[in-house]
């Protein structure tokens, strides 16, 4: 033996790094550093403007306080209601439309061409940001809740359809096989083998989507698609900051409430 076996004494243990490949690790660090230098270099921060902004921000924040719920109370209430029914109607129509698309996007139920068409509909709906769709629909349908309703419906189709399709694909295939063996038609298979398996989760997703649609309705209103967002935008445009603060608080409270409610309902269904 030319060398003595290495002694454990005197050596210290070191935690294995997260990225095992040392070269990749260093490359990543260097990449991050170069990127940060480039990004911060082009950010062109206007410190003067920011200093002004801080002062202005203070005034602005104090302009927000105290939130004024009463002078626009009726408009806020109307806006919230408008958002609620917009979200509900859009969820219902969106889900009704997305059921055939979702079923068509399940590889184990339909032939390849149908699958491709349905999947691409979902992809388009999910890739376009909702606010862009809202702008487009406001141009097409005019200001108001109908444009908002159409936007949310469009978004729901992509979201619900995709999750439904994936659920169907990952559900237990044995009942489907059994139904086929008994000579059931395609519709019967769908009704008795697929639907009972995916229904509980689908209801959960539907409730969650309702919650999401309400939250989104606060945003798409800013570009003219009705709801609480439109009320918020009006308050900003009129420099009624105390009312705007009140609306923001109302949105936060309702979003929180609907989140807990939707979590509760989903637990109930499961």
């Amino acid at each position, binding site marked *: 033996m030319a060398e003595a076996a290495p002694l454990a004494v005197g050596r210290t243990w070191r*935690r294995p790094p*997260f990225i095992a490949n040392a070269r990749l690790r260093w490359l990543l660090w260097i990449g991050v550093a170069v*990127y940060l230098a480039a*990004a*911060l270099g*082009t*950010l*062109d*921060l*206007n410190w003067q*403007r*920011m200093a002004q*902004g801080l002062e*202005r*921000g203070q005034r*602005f924040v104090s302009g927000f306080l105290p939130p004024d719920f009463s002078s626009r109370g009726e408009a806020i209430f109307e806006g919230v209601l*408008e958002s609620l*029914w*917009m979200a*509900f*109607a859009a969820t*219902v129509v969106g889900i009704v439309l997305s059921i055939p698309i979702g079923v068509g996007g399940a590889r184990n139920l339909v032939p390849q061409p149908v699958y491709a068409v349905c999947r691409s509909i979902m992809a388009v709906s999910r*890739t*376009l*940001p909702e*606010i*862009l769709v809202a*702008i487009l629909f406001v*141009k*097409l*349908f*005019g200001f*108001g*809740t*109908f444009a908002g*309703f159409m936007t949310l419906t469009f978004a729901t189709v992509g979201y619900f359809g995709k999750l439904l399709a994936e659920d169907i694909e990952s559900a237990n295939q044995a009942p489907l096989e059994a139904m086929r063996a008994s000579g059931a038609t395609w519709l019967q298979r769908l009704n*008795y083998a697929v639907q009972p398996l995916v229904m509980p989760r689908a209801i959960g997703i539907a409730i969650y989507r309702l919650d999401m649609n309400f*939250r*989104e309705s*606060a*945003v798409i209103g*800013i*570009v003219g698609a*009705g709801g609480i967002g439109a009320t*918020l935008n009006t308050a*900003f445009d009129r420099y009624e900051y105390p009312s705007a603060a009140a609306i*923001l608080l109302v*949105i*936060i409270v309702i*979003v*929180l409430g609907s*989140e807990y409610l939707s979590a509760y309902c989903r637990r109930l269904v499961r």
Partner: protein
Amino acid sequence: MPTVTQGGTRLWRRMSAEASFKRWVLWLIATAVFVWCWQKISAGTEWSFVLDAPAQGADILDRMIPPEWGYAKTLGRPLWDTLNMATLGTMIAVVIAVPLAFLAAQNTTPSGLFARPFALFCIVASRSINSVIWALVLVLILGPGVLSGTIAIALRSVGFIGKLLYEAIEETDRRPRDAIASTGASQGQVIAYAVVPQIMPVFAGIAVFRWDINIRESTILGLVGAGGLGLQLNAAIGNLDWSHVSVILLAIFATVIVSEWVSARVRKAVT
């Protein structure tokens, strides 16, 4: 198994009479609510505009095609701004969200009475306001530009990253923690040697996932004045420059798809 007797033979039914009645009532209520909602929407709609929509759509599409490709050259800088808003915003959010998550997780919080509710409140407040609304407020305070967008993205992402991360921390296996603690390690050492290695892959996944969402959001923040592609889009729509609008929309589309692809690759690599 619910059955009915019909002409002497027992027939299988999926639901008992009571269950199907309950379902029927639920459907009735849901339908009634929907009809009521629809009436409200319909009352506030100028139907002649809606009927006009296909013609309008065809008109806009006609002006959008062909896209004016030369315009794409001027989009480099806005695209860079968009990427920066998303990336820097995500980085800032990570820096804020990681300590918050450790404060919020039941098993690592230093005080369940003060620190935990405070951290949870920060996470919830950040999550319940959309980044567009954050941007709307920040543009008023800090002025229009990339900085407002970056901070808006960061503020919104803190809640998202914080929530997923603290849930991951709470789900960690407690045995390594106990083992490290039993060697006499301090709380900080327990976190560094027992908790961090367990959540690292989840953390990387969450951060990249949020970055992907942020790219999508930062493309539109310009609509309220926060820089990036959205600013160009807003200007083009305002000028009714539809051949420019289509170029910008394609740019947004491409950016979103690339970021989604990158994020999917990275998430696959770390988990």
